[in-house]
């Protein structure tokens, strides 16, 4: 009961926070001087392509960019009507991307599922590598397996992602015939899903997953190991042993759950952190995820596109923290979110 009420309360707070965040996002995007269309016009002129200028000017009025900032915000969020009845975010109208000259929804639509795919793969990789390795490193601390996994992990951490990607691409292509960049063989683009396409996507995912995942996996593994080592001395672990549980099974059932607490706290930010954290990686690896769109949009101040992507990430974060709080309460029954002396 309490948890249900708590969930409802948290949900309402979340919506309020979202509005606050939207204001800040809008403000931050507009922080750098200039706007997309004037930049665009500058760029066209600078490269001697003045014949494109007319169209850029057309868009300015079409999307209310000539109005004051607060008005633009209200229009964007859908609190105020825009020109030609533009209805705004809250009605599912995400605006127009100047950069790509298409509705935002069209652009992000496809990228969204790829983003989810790549990040899911990375998260899966992180968990699949970090969980067992962390447990093993804790159970067999100070053995070669502990040291090797630490070394490899830190090697991954200490190599800039782009360099790592380049190295992997170059040698992967050379010796394993792995593809360079992209998320699927271009010939499958736009094709319906098929076995071949699936295969192609999987093969293309290997290196990006590795590149995005290594740092996360190494980090999680080491922290998990430290937390587990703390728990290992606790008497309840001995009770479990006395029951005749095997070491790994025992580790997984008892201390892992306690050691998991700090990670659950972060589960909420895992997805959004990967989305925004993998922006640069996606850019350099040429993944058609939402990240590169965000970066180009931000650089060119493509207002609606960047605002939408950022709102999306913000939303993920908020939903994520909500989930993580609920999970926390489930994970550890002692946790109350109430005050100190209630």
């Amino acid at each position, binding site marked *: 009961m309490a948890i249900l009420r708590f969930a409802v309360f948290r949900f309402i*707070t979340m919506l309020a*926070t979202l509005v*606050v*965040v939207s204001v*800040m*996002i809008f403000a*931050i995007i507009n*922080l*750098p*001087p200039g706007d997309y269309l004037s930049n665009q016009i500058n760029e066209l002129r600078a490269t001697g392509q003045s014949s494109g200028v007319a169209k850029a000017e057309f868009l300015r009025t079409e999307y209310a960019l000539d109005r004051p900032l607060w008005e633009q915000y209200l229009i964007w969020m859908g609190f105020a009507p825009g020109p030609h009845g533009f209805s705004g975010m809250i009605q599912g109208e995400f605006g127009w991307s100047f950069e790509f000259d298409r509705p935002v929804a069209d652009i992000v639509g496809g990228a969204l599922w790829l983003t989810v795919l790549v990040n899911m793969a990375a998260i899966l990789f992180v968990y699949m590598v970090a969980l067992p390795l962390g447990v093993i490193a804790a159970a067999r601390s100070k053995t070669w397996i502990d040291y090797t996994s*630490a*070394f490899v992990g*830190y090697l991954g*951490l*200490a*190599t*800039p*992602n*782009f*360099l790592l990607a*380049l*190295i992997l691409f*170059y040698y992967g292509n050379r010796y394993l015939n792995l593809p360079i960049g992209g998320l699927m063989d271009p010939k499958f683009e736009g094709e319906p899903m098929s076995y071949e396409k699936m295969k192609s996507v999987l093969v293309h995912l290997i290196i990006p997953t590795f590149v995005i995942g290594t740092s996360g996996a*190494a980090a999680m593994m*080491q*922290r998990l190991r*430290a*937390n587990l080592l*703390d728990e*290992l*001395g606790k008497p309840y672990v001995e009770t479990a042993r006395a029951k005749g549980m095997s070491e790994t099974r025992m580790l997984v059932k008892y201390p892992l759950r306690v050691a998991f*607490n*700090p*990670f*659950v*706290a*972060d589960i*909420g*930010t895992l997805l*959004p*952190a990967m989305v*925004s954290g993998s922006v*640069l990686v996606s850019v350099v690896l040429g993944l058609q995820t939402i990240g590169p769109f965000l970066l180009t949009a*931000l*650089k060119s101040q493509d207002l609606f596109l960047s605002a939408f992507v*950022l709102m999306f*990430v*913000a*939303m993920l*974060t*908020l939903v994520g*923290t909500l989930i*993580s709080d609920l999970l926390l309460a489930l994970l550890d029954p002692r*946790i*109350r*979110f*109430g*005050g*100190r002396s*209630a």
Partner: protein
Amino acid sequence: MTTLPDGRYIDPKPYEPDTGAEARHAELDMPNWMLVWRRFREHKLGLISGLFLLISYVMLPFAGFISPYTANERAPDHLYASPQGIHMFHEGKLIGPYVYPISAEVNLETFSWEYTPDYENPARLNFFCEGSYYKLAGFIKTNRHLVCAPEGATIFLLGADRLGRDVFSRILYGAQLSLTVGLVGISVSFLIGIVLGSIAGYFGGFLDWIINRVIEILRSLPELPLWLALSAAVPSHWGPVSVFFIISIILGILDWPGLARAVRSKFLSLREEEFVRAAEMMGAKPSRVIRKHLLPNFLSHLIASATLSIPAMILGETALSFLGLGLRAPAVSWGVMLNDAQNLASIEIYPWTAIPMLPIVIVVLAFNFFGDGLRDALDPNRA
């Protein structure tokens, strides 16, 4: 074994009711840190790592002295020079440490620099010699180097980069920034993260609610556009180091929520422990409970997190330089050097330009093992 006829056993030793007090251990009057240090000493890897880090940090002010060149000294005739070995014996004769002079030739077939050592004229290294001027420990201007290239030859232990700068010397100089400035960010983020996380987790309720909202808002606020905005806003006459300093502080300020949430959630659970309740019943103030009871029980996680943040901070700038915010010349850091190496040619043709990866890995491993040793020394249940 003494067994009585009725089958029972009796200890043969004479029984004295109470032996009285034992001699007082010396340990008893040692401060806690001494006890910890004694246990830490047993963790060999941790000890070695700690020593290594100590030496590294002590060396920082003397980087200029140890390195044969200064950070931005260019050898125009030795672009992309390959690493040179130091030899002792020439044609079977011991002539002390020397190098073979190398000369460059551009190969317009492959479009790369090729170097041929001159095996005829071994050039002995000079020690405690005069080279270019640098500032020892940041203020003493001198030109004395531990070792410099002999006349007419060069000494590129780890090769030279595109501009003909010595990679080895640059790594040493780079350590000055990479090992210090980046850590400022970590400290900031840990400080804020721990304080706010503790408050939220320990007090719960309204404070928790407020801090959580702040965290949420901060986390959902995009960093990328902030950086972009920032790169326009930083005053242009600021030196690269101060820009980077500010950036890493901001990086730290933005980075704390993750840690704060971890601390908070752990404390939400820890504060329900009996020993916390006991401390409270003794009248311990919240700050004390947090410091003495909660934090030590989360220390392992914190130590691990801290060691893990270090590579992130050192490399953070490479990501930032994509946005025009990273460190930049003439400042030298490992991130800057790696940034220069981010292309295929560096990997395939001039692999030594990517060498700065090694010090990062080594330092990070050292921090990790050091942290592990510390964790171990603080662990009451340690084996």
